[in-house]
């Protein structure tokens, strides 16, 4: 009977408040973290773009812009899962290229093939993700190397099969997924299908990160050893993350067929753009920190930045330079902000402790695979 006493004592105590601060206080605190600051960045960039180019203030233009951004945002969502678990997925661009070429050659002008080929593409995406995941977890090869190998192998295969040139042309109804939208909507005129896909996937992603899967994935990225001794199955968690990443690249590929056409170079550099977007969204390389929707917002911020540069009349060749400066600055600031955010109540000798924490958790690329 002695075991019931602590239970009794606990019930007598007043329950702890669910949150320390009010709703607005928490929202403000969230905006101060790198994951929230990206939304402020998006709004600031949007205002700046509208000031530079008043046409951009039209809701129809903004919604079309968001439609164009959808594939990279979807890719960023997928990359988020891999990065937050402490890994990298460099094979994304090759997957996009492979899917685009598959769609172009297998569907052709035959509309009846759209459904089976789409299913086949998704299956190929799952297969690539499983290979990446098992290579990382079972073989114990750093994910940087596994996905680099996949990128070389898959990219080489696609180039070999197509001869490096554009081949095939899928049916127009398939391209509508990327091109079209719901017409005659009040205010915004048109809602592009890619934006709807992005919204659905974003909601799914946000939901999944609140599920045990998402929580364990972040835990595995933060401290793989602790996650494993708490009963998480690291290999299965990470393999699922890689599968999600490849699937998101597949979806991005399906959308890109719509307006980029069929060419083996379509996905080129997608992995680095996606990683940039994720990092811009405040997600920490090495895992364990960051929010999934912020990753998508990071993609929007990146594309908005390019629109702003164009509106300001900056030569397109300088884009890369600005992109480079931005990501370095974003990560430098974010690294500090996350560290500060973790210890909100710490007072006194703050400079000494914060500088220690800064050097404390240097993420190591693609090697935090726990015991693997």
């Amino acid at each position, binding site marked *: 009977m002695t075991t019931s006493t602590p239970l009794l004592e606990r019930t007598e105590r007043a329950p702890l408040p669910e949150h320390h601060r009010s709703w607005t206080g928490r929202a403000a605190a969230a905006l101060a973290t790198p994951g929230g600051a990206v939304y402020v960045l998006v709004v600031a960039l949007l205002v700046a773009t509208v000031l530079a180019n008043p046409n951009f203030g039209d809701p129809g233009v903004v919604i079309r812009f968001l439609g164009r951004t959808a594939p990279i945002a979807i890719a960023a969502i997928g990359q988020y899962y891999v990065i937050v678990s402490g890994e990298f997925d*460099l094979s994304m661009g090759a997957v996009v290229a492979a899917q685009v070429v598959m769609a172009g050659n297998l569907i052709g002008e035959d509309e009846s093939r759209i459904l089976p080929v789409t299913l086949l593409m998704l299956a190929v995406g799952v297969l690539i993700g499983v290979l990446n995941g098992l*290579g990382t977890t*079972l*073989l*114990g*090869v*750093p994910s*940087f*190397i*596994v996905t*680099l*190998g*996949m*990128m*070389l*192998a*898959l*990219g*080489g*295969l696609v*180039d*070999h099969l197509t001869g*490096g040139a554009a081949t095939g042309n899928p049916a127009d109804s398939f391209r509508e997924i990327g091109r079209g939208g719901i017409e005659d909507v009040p205010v915004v005129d048109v809602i592009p299908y890619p934006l709807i896909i992005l919204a659905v996937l974003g909601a799914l992603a946000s939901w999944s990160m609140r599920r045990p899967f998402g929580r364990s994935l972040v835990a595995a990225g933060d401290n793989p050893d602790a996650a*494993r*001794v708490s009963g998480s*199955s*690291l*290999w*299965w968690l990470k393999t699922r993350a890689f599968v999600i990443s490849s699937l998101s690249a597949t979806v991005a590929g399906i959308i890109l067929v719509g307006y980029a056409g069929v060419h083996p170079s379509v996905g080129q550099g997608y992995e*680095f753009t996606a*990683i*940039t977007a994720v*990092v811009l969204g405040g997600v920490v*390389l090495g895992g364990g920190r960051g929010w999934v929707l912020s990753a998508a917002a990071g993609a929007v911020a990146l594309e908005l930045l390019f629109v702003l540069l164009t509106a300001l009349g900056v*030569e397109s*060749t*300088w*884009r*890369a*330079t*600005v*992109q*480079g*400066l931005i*990501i*370095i600055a974003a*990560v*430098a600031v974010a*690294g*500090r902000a996350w560290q500060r955010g973790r210890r909100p109540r710490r007072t006194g000798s703050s400079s000494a402790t914060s500088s220690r924490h*800064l*050097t*404390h958790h*240097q*993420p*190591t*690329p*693609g*090697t935090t695979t726990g*015991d693997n």
Partner: protein
Amino acid sequence: MSALTRRTTPLTSTGIVLVLLAVSLVAGFVLTAVEGRNFLSSGNISALLTGISILGFIAIGQTLVILVGSLDLSVPYVVSLVSVLAAGTMAGQDGNVLPAVALALLVAAAVGLVNGAIVAYLGVHGFIATLGTGLVISGYLATNYQGSHGSAPRSFRLVGATQVGPVPLSTLILLGCAVLVVLMLRRTRVGHHLYAVGGNREVARLSGIRTSVPVLVAHTLSSVLAALAGLLLVARLSVGSPTIGSQGDYDLMSIAAVVLGGTLLAGGKGNVVGTLAGVAIFSVLDNVMGVMGVSAFLQDVVRGLVIVVAVAVYARREIDRRPARFERPTGLDAALQEAK
């Protein structure tokens, strides 16, 4: 006693890489013989060594950066930048060679120093820091240079063309650099600190090591060695090109060579000899596939597979050698552990 330890720890990672290199050499010999050519002809040996040198320079630098726990993705852009700067400064005049080389090395050292400073002082991950500086340089190159640029004088082109027996001069320079870097890693304070910081930066710091110095040194040397590769490309092609680096995929291929050479991607463990063996394996692969007439695209497929499989061979060993843990894995995890 030494016999006992030798029995319990049979082969180091470097040993495995050298065995892999030997296997690939034998396979290359056999496959080339099947095609009716001589793998060991002096022409082919010099082609093999020539194939090693460019990636070799970059991979040695990349080894240093990876050892210290960082990454260098900016190397292809440094190579391109150096190639246009050097070729532009030379402008076909013999007298301009020395200033051009000095300028190239200085600019590269500055880029490396910036990389190192961002990693060491701003606390930005090397992946992002060097991706960022690489993008900055690529924007500069794309804006200011279109197509090939400048030209190298005959005296400088000789560096790329001279051979000592079957061994190209560039390979000798590469070996010289490798020896210097090995000496630095083994015999100097900064070399030892480099391993310490790469192994565990916090422990190194608590042991009284100024952790920023090895990071700065590694990044600077990486960029300078990339500049040597860029200069060598100018000597071979006699013009500078703003896209020569990114065409070669030198960032990812050098990282692959380093990891293939047994260096831990997390840093703190590895050596230059393994890296050179890794580069040599790539060179043998390219050479053999070239002789067999495999298409350039399929060569990428083979490379990708070889990288993953080779690294898997000793990635497993690294796990085995770790000390036993105190938990009992359950279910599928246990099965997977046993499968290893």
